[in-house]
């Protein structure tokens, strides 16, 4: 029953009507959480005894890295829904999420490099996590290019879904690389279910708010961009129908 109600959102018209109501609230919440988390972290937290003020980069780097990986995992779920159930909205949601995930990956790579220069003495190292993140970025590029290169929407959705399945290996590798390859420069995860492994509370709470902001920003942008993709697909279908008849 619940699942049947969920599939109702696979109807493009229902999706647009629902997001008409949801999108403004999600957008306002995203801005509130982002501003609160970043202002709290930047202005009202102390320096770290080892990293100095560079610890403030954590409020952008960690949430963007988290979203870079989770955006791909969201694309994996919607791609699987497309493969199994052939719902166009799910394929279009994956397409809509890709540029957002790619920007999150770029932010994570750039802020990591900017932080790494004074802390590690280098902008870049072929460390397992950094390398798997770079490969994830290349997968995002390939995924977006594949959608653009194929004219038929269904064929594009099929092929990009397969690419997404393959790329998921690197998304998971990016997440867990620090756990099973400890020869790299990158330190362990900043957040963990085990409270002992987390960063200190003074950094932890603003970080949680910033993460909530990035998650909500991602949701708002994916909803907005999925609506655009639904409309673009309808427009292509109408134009094709008119050309034929």
């Amino acid at each position, binding site marked *: 029953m619940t699942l049947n109600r969920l599939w109702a959102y696979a109807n493009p018209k229902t999706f647009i009507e629902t997001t008409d109501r949801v999108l403004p609230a999600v957008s306002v919440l995203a801005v509130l959480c982002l501003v609160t988390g*970043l202002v709290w972290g*930047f*202005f009202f937290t102390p*320096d770290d005894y080892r990293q*100095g*003020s*560079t610890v*403030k*980069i954590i409020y*952008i*780097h960690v949430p*963007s890295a988290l979203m870079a990986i989770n955006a791909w995992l969201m694309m994996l779920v919607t791609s699987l829904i497309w493969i199994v159930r052939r719902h166009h909205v799910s394929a279009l949601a994956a397409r809509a999420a890709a*540029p*957002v995930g790619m*920007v999150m990956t*770029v*932010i994570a790579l*750039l*802020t990591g490099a*900017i*932080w790494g*220069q*004074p802390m590690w003495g280098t902008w870049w190292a072929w460390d397992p996590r950094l390398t798997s993140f770079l490969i994830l970025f290349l997968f995002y590029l390939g995924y977006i290019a594949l959608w653009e290169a194929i004219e038929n929407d269904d064929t594009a959705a099929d092929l990009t879904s397969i690419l997404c399945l393959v790329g998921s290996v690197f998304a998971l590798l990016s997440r867990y690389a620090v756990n099973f390859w400890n020869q790299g420069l990158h330190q362990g995860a900043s957040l963990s279910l085990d409270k002992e492994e987390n960063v200190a509370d003074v950094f932890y709470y603003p970080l949680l708010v910033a993460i909530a902001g990035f998650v909500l*920003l991602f949701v708002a*942008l994916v909803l*907005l*961009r999925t*609506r*655009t993709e639904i*409309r*673009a697909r*309808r*427009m292509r279908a*109408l*134009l094709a*129908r*008119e050309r034929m008849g």
Partner: protein
Amino acid sequence: MMPDLGKYAETVLSAYAVSLVLIVVLVLLSLRRGRKVKAELEAVEKKVGKNG
């Protein structure tokens, strides 16, 4: 109001600046394309409605 970022001021500020610029550009491009496609679809629907 501005916290004392010490010798890492340039590092911290450049990380924030680059990230915020990328986010703002992404939001603006998403909004612009959304508006453009919506207007184009309305025009096509009107045209198809007239012809069909």
